[in-house]
């Protein structure tokens, strides 16, 4: 946390350059390496830190308070060590983690296709929005097994992890409204050979039943017994919450130096309306941060209870935490547009300004697929409670139709 806090001034200074490059500079990458940020979720046996989810999110928030694009690239390159360590077997982990130098974007949307080849698979395709790709050592993705017959339906879904030597990064990121510096480039593979131990058959990152996963047994830490859906949303929400904290800093500086636009003409920080807007933003940021701490605490508790007495971390648990974590993103976005952007004045909307950049960046977070699925997640949570889920794992190619009759 101290290292993350200390980096904030330089992250702010480099933010414009990061946007223009479409990913953070080598210097920032080296700062992250030195601070051990890429190893936060890497297991100890591979030289990692095994940080609790709550601590991971706090570091992400702190970096995001400096620059959301940078934090996005860091978070999404370092978070997926958690899933490699939870879901894949020992051989795959030893191979991918090596000495712990592991940076791995992951995209849950399947693309491309795979065919069996020798002792493994040949995978081809292009995967978009692979945040953290520029400095990545690996990629974790989803694909389908090729149809059994030409023109037939795709086969099973596969989750795979593959080293950088097997893929190329396309130069196709940076022309979006925000997050231009997040390094969310596409990754392309042409008949990449992936050994069988690095491919999980019938597995989708969005709905992971971890009761039989090897992570807990291998590492003896309930950190590696948790489900994924709530973690993904917690990351997106922590990023937005951190950005709001950065906006608060800028807003404070603004109201300390500017005067009101109408009588009484006084420094804005002495005006009751500006105090209220500023205070409301402080309140919402604190609520978002507290909610995320609650989600992380509960997520860890579910893992501990599974490890201690076998109480299963259910899909309903995961959905509830996912829904809760999303409330933090809602608070952050609401505050940014209602409290901060609406009242900061037009000068704060000039291109290149910190508030302008934060507004664009968080707008992208607000429109991320994780947030688009809010209503779906509410519905699934209700369906779990109503007993309408038949128990089959959710698959993107097969909508849930198993309702109670």
């Amino acid at each position, binding site marked *: 946390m101290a290292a993350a806090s200390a980096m904030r001034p330089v992250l702010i200074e480099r933010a414009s350059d990061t946007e223009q490059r479409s990913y953070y500079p080598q210097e920032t990458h080296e700062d992250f390496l030195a601070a051990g940020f890429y190893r936060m979720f890497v297991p100890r046996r591979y030289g990692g830190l095994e940080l609790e989810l709550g601590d991971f999110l706090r570091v992400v928030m702190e970096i995001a308070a400096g620059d959301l694009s940078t934090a996005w690239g860091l978070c999404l390159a370092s978070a997926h060590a958690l899933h490699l360590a939870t879901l894949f077997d020992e051989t795959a982990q030893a191979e991918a983690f090596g000495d712990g130098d592991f940076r791995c974007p992951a995209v849950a949307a399947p693309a491309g296709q795979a065919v069996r080849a020798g002792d493994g698979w040949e995978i081809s395709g292009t995967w978009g929005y692979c945040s953290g790709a520029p400095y990545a050592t690996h990629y974790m993705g989803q694909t389908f097994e090729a149809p059994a017959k030409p023109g037939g339906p795709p086969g099973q879904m596969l989750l795979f992890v593959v080293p950088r030597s097997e893929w190329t990064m396309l130069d196709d990121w940076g022309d979006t409204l925000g997050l231009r510096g997040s390094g969310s480039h596409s990754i392309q593979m042409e008949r990449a050979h992936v050994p069988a131990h690095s491919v999980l058959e019938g597995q989708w990152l969005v709905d992971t039943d971890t009761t039989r996963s090897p992570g807990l047994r291998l590492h003896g830490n309930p950190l590696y017994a948790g489900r994924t859906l709530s973690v993904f949303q917690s990351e997106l929400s922590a990023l937005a919450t951190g950005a709001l904290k950065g906006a608060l800093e800028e807003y404070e500086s603004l109201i300390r130096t500017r005067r009101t636009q109408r009588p009484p003409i006084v420094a804005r920080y002495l005006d009751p309306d500006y105090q209220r807007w500023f205070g409301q933003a402080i309140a*919402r940021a*604190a609520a978002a941060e507290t909610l995320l701490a609650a989600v992380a605490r509960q997520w860890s508790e579910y893992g501990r209870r599974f490890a201690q007495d076998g109480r299963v971390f259910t899909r309903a648990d995961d959905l509830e935490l996912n829904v*809760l974590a*999303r409330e933090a993103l809602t608070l952050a976005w609401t505050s940014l547009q209602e409290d901060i952007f609406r009242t900061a004045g037009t000068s704060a909307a000039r291109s290149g300004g910190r508030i302008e950049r934060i507004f664009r960046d968080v707008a992208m977070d607000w429109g991320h697929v994780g947030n688009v699925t809010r209503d779906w997640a*509410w519905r699934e949570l209700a369906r779990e409670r*109503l007993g309408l889920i038949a128990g089959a794992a959710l698959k993107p190619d097969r909508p849930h139709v198993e309702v109670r009759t």
Partner: protein
Amino acid sequence: MSEPIELARELGARLRRPAAAGEPGGCCAPETHQLLAEGGFYAALVPAPEGAGLDLRDFIAAVAELARGCPQSAWCAASLAVGTARARAQFDAAGALRASAATAPAASATRSDGGWVVSGTFARCAGARFATHFLGSARIDGEPGVLRFLAAREQFELRDEGAGACACVAGIELERALIPEALASASELPVDSWSAAVPPAALAAVFAGAAARAVEIHEEIVRAEPQTRELDPDHQRWLGAAMGRAAAARLLLREAAAANVEGVRLGSLARQSMRYAWDCVQEGLGVGGSAERERREQLERIARFMLIGLSDPAALPEEWIARQLARERLELPLDAAPAIP
């Protein structure tokens, strides 16, 4: 688990039955009060051995359990527990004390030989009918700041709040009550750190418990035969949203208490928790139709309680809280104006 928590759970379950509010021992009935008193609930926050010595996190959990049965009973009980703990801590009062409390300075105080003369009326004091004392605050004549005081039962009269008021709620009127110096404390700020934190957290706990009950009723409506609401995607979404908001209300408050957040920061988080609880109930108010009249009436009772609670002085106005948070960060003196809803 301590006795007050078990008692709250048991009473909450008993009051949850639809007809319980009208039965002996039901909502805010003397029998309910008697059980709470005998079970030590009013001394839940008083340090052991005189009280149960619950920390705020456990107290919140107990209040929420009670509120799942009857929000009004829970608020009366929580108010008395909070007032009692504060009275004992601030004025070193001992003995069989149960204090109703009010945050807003609705009376005036004048210095007198050996103490203060206090006059004024405090509206809608929760738990007033079961209180042995009243913990209030008053504007000081001719001076800035407020006076916090503890008045004994013989020093105040109860005023009927009229139709619609809960059985244990009453106005409290003091007419030239002589408060000894030892039971009074002058302060520059109308709302101190404790008042900005603990009463709002207690009210938010009631909201969180009431929201949990609202979700149960909402679910019953969705499941009710012969309708097919449970298979309807909109009904699923509304119920899921209500579940999410109820969980947010509960967990936000619990996390804040677990992290030992204090002062106006806790008050602010309590306010956000109340907002989630209110949003949760609103998700349910749109469903059911006339065929579900009885269940809808249960939801409406919860909603009515919340509407009143949202403007309860104990919770402090959101705008006032926001301004204090800003002034704290800007290193400005806290607002000396009272928080008036």
